[in-house]
Structures are given as structure tokens and as C-alpha cells.
């Protein structure tokens, strides 16, 4: 991210410290992403290693299984670490987005200051206040990301034993595509993966969840929330503030179902995932962070 010398002069006039570059963020994101990839591979290979002793039956095998599916088990621990590293990398991505976003209006104010100093010096205090406001927004945003990092210290929550692996489940199998944006897209793989994660459960409660995005409501209200890759899942949060970070200054979508749906993650207090995305009729509306308005979805009809 290069900032033109003329802008730097404007920053100086306004008393604003130059914005940091994003190259270091990119380096850290790359390092975290590589670690996530290694841990995910380890979790997969661990499942294979564990499966090699699959013929065994009896109390010793059950004791091992209880350990392996507990929060202290090696494989849940690998998955938990991968998830927390992913969240840390996402926090860095959001921070990069915030810096790249704020550099635009801040540069405009700085250039205006350069002109004002010659032709309209009386405007300088106002421009200075604007610059200070943008800088404060940046610091506030980064401090919130810092708080998310701090929250990731927390040890993984106690996971319900036997939520994955070999333990039998009672009751009818839920319709895992009940909320999907497109019911015809197969989601078996992603559902199986969610079921394998210790502590995950299919939600039956209707608490609203939130998804941050820069995609416009016109499109989301028409098409619903689709995963980036067909057949994958859409991530949402019970905490609208967390979703707001992913909105990067644009829209936070509120999702509300009438009969539950979505996987509540056992290793994250707030995350709820929807295999195949979310159909438009479950999107209640969007908070527009630029205007502060709530935009209702005309197709909202959770049934």
C-alpha cells in the first residue's frame, strides 16, 4: 500500500501519523494460514491413525474413545487450534481491510488540507477534525480486533462428549438442508465434517444469527446467502458485533429461522454454520453500516 507524497504532506498539515503498511499483515496472514493447513492435515491423518485400531472393542477401547473425543483429546485439540488460528488470520484480514478502507477518505482529507492551506486556511480545523475522526475509527476498529484476539485465549469450551465419532445419536435425523440457499446442492460432505467435530450440534432454537458481508442487500434478498464454494457452508455468529467485523463497513445480515437449523460449533461460543448457505426467506434484513438503517427483506418468510 503506497501513499503518495502529496498525501503525506497533507497528513503532516493535519497532524496525523502516516498509516502503517499492510505488508507485515500479509506476512502474518500467510504464516497463520500455513499453520492452519498443517493442523487440518494433522487432524485428518490423526483420524486415519485412530481408525487403524478400529476393530478393537471393549472397555479399554471405550476409554480411549472417551479421551479422544474429549476437549483434551489430541484430534479435537488439533481442530480447535486450527479454528483459533483461522479466526486470528481472519482478524488480520479484517484489519487489513479496515486500513485499506480508511486510507481512501483520509487521503482525500489530506489532499483537501493541502489545498486549504493555500486557498481556505479557515477550513483547516474542520479538516483536521475529520482526519482525527477517521483515525479514531481506525484505532477503534483495531482495538476491537484486539479484543477478539484476547477472547481467543480462552480455553476451548467443554464439549459434549460423544458428539462426534462412533457414538449413536437418538431421534430422527434432522433435515440438514432445511435452511440451505439451494436445496438441490449436495452438502453431505460438509454435514459429515460438521458432525465429526466434537461438541457440534444441530440447533433447535430460533435465536437470530448474523452474517457480515459487503454484498448488497439487492442480491442477498434475491438469492440468499451462498457459500463461496457451492456445497460448502456459510458462517454466521450469534454476536452481531463479530459479524460486523466481517461486514467491513457495509452490511450485517440477520438470519432468523422458525425451527432452528445450523450447526452450533462446540469449540466456539458464537459460531453457527449453515451447510449450503441460507435461503432468502430466512434472511430477515440487513443493517447498513453506512446509513445506520435496517433494510427489511421483502422475501422474509421463515414459516
Amino acid at each position, binding site marked *: 500500500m503506497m501513499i503518495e507524497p502529496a498525501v503525506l504532506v497533507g497528513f503532516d498539515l493535519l497532524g496525523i501519523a502516516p498509516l502503517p503498511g499492510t505488508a507485515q499483515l500479509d506476512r502474518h496472514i500467510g504464516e497463520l494460514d500455513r499453520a492452519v493447513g498443517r493442523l487440518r492435515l*494433522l487432524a485428518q491423518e*490423526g483420524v486415519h491413525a485412530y481408525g487403524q*485400531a478400529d476393530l*478393537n472393542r471393549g472397555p479399554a477401547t471405550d476409554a480411549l474413545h472417551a479421551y479422544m473425543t474429549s476437549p483434551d483429546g*489430541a484430534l479435537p*485439540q488439533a481442530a480447535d487450534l486450527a479454528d483459533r488460528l483461522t479466526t486470528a488470520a481472519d482478524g488480520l484480514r479484517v484489519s487489513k481491510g479496515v486500513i485499506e478502507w480508511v486510507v481512501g477518505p483520509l487521503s482525500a482529507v489530506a489532499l483537501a488540507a493541502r489545498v486549504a492551506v493555500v486557498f481556505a486556511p479557515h477550513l483547516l480545523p474542520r479538516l483536521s477534525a475529520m482526519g482525527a475522526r477517521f483515525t479514531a475509527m481506525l484505532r477503534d476498529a483495531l*482495538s476491537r480486533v484486539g479484543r477478539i484476539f484476547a477472547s481467543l485465549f480462552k480455553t476451548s469450551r467443554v464439549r459434549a462428549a460423544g458428539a462426534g465419532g462412533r457414538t449413536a445419536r437418538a431421534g430422527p435425523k434432522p433435515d440438514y438442508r432445511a435452511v440451505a440457499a439451494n436445496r438441490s446442492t449436495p452438502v453431505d460432505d460438509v454435514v459429515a465434517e460438521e458432525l465429526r467435530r466434537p461438541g457440534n450440534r444441530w440447533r433447535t432454537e430460533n435465536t437470530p444469527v448474523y452474517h457480515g458481508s459487503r454484498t448488497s442487500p439487492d442480491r442477498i434478498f434475491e438469492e440468499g446467502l451462498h457459500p463461496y464454494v457451492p456445497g460448502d457452508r456459510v458462517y454466521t455468529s450469534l454476536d452481531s458485533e463479530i459479524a460486523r467485523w466481517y461486514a467491513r463497513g457495509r452490511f450485517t445480515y440477520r438470519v432468523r429461522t422458525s425451527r432452528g437449523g445450523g450447526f452450533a460449533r462446540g469449540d466456539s461460543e458464537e459460531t453457527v454454520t449453515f451447510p449450503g448457505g441460507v435461503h432468502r426467506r430466512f434472511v430477515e434484513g440487513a443493517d447498513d453500516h453506512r446509513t445506520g438503517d435496517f433494510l427489511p427483506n421483502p422475501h422474509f418468510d421463515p414459516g
Partner: protein
Amino acid sequence: MTSGPYDEVVADASGRFASGRSFRTLADEHADFVAGLRGQWDEEAPLPYEEFAVPYLQLRRNLLDECERLGGNLRYVGDGQVFMAERNTDAEDASTIGSAVAGPVQMGPR
């Protein structure tokens, strides 16, 4: 999988040996990986803002420590599987003196 009383106990020592060896290999590979991270992850913050940099670097140190503990857990599982396999083999040898045993051994009521 039943949780007891057990109407079927199956001991597959070769499966346990294989599983144990695989976990030990994973533990070795993971130890190399963590050593690499320790060398690679420096203490330089990606942004010069304290409210961001301090929790980020603390988090990274914390995750790195947990990665190291994970390696210990992988080795623990591997050692446990091999130990159990050895006990299974001893039990098989004791119960089938003079005859070779191949494949899983089923114990308990048929």
C-alpha cells in the same frame, strides 16, 4: 459402541500397533513443525498499535504453546496404543500356547 456391560471384547493387536506407530510418526512430524514455527514466528507485531499488537502477539505465543502440548498428546496416544497392543499380544500368547494367532481375537460370549 457399547459402554458396558460388554457382551463383546475384541483385541486387534496389529491394528493397535499400526495405530500407535502412526501416532508416533505424527508426533515426530508435529514436533518438527512446531520447531519450525518457533524459528519463523518472531515477536514483530504486524501493526504498530498497542491495543492490537499486544493481544495478537500474546495469542500467537499461547497458540504456539498449545501446539507444543498437542505434540505431547499425540505421543501419549501413540505410546498408549503400542502399550495396549503389547498387552494384547502377551494375552494372546498366554491363551494360545503353541499356536499362531492371526487377526483379531474375540473374547467373551459368542
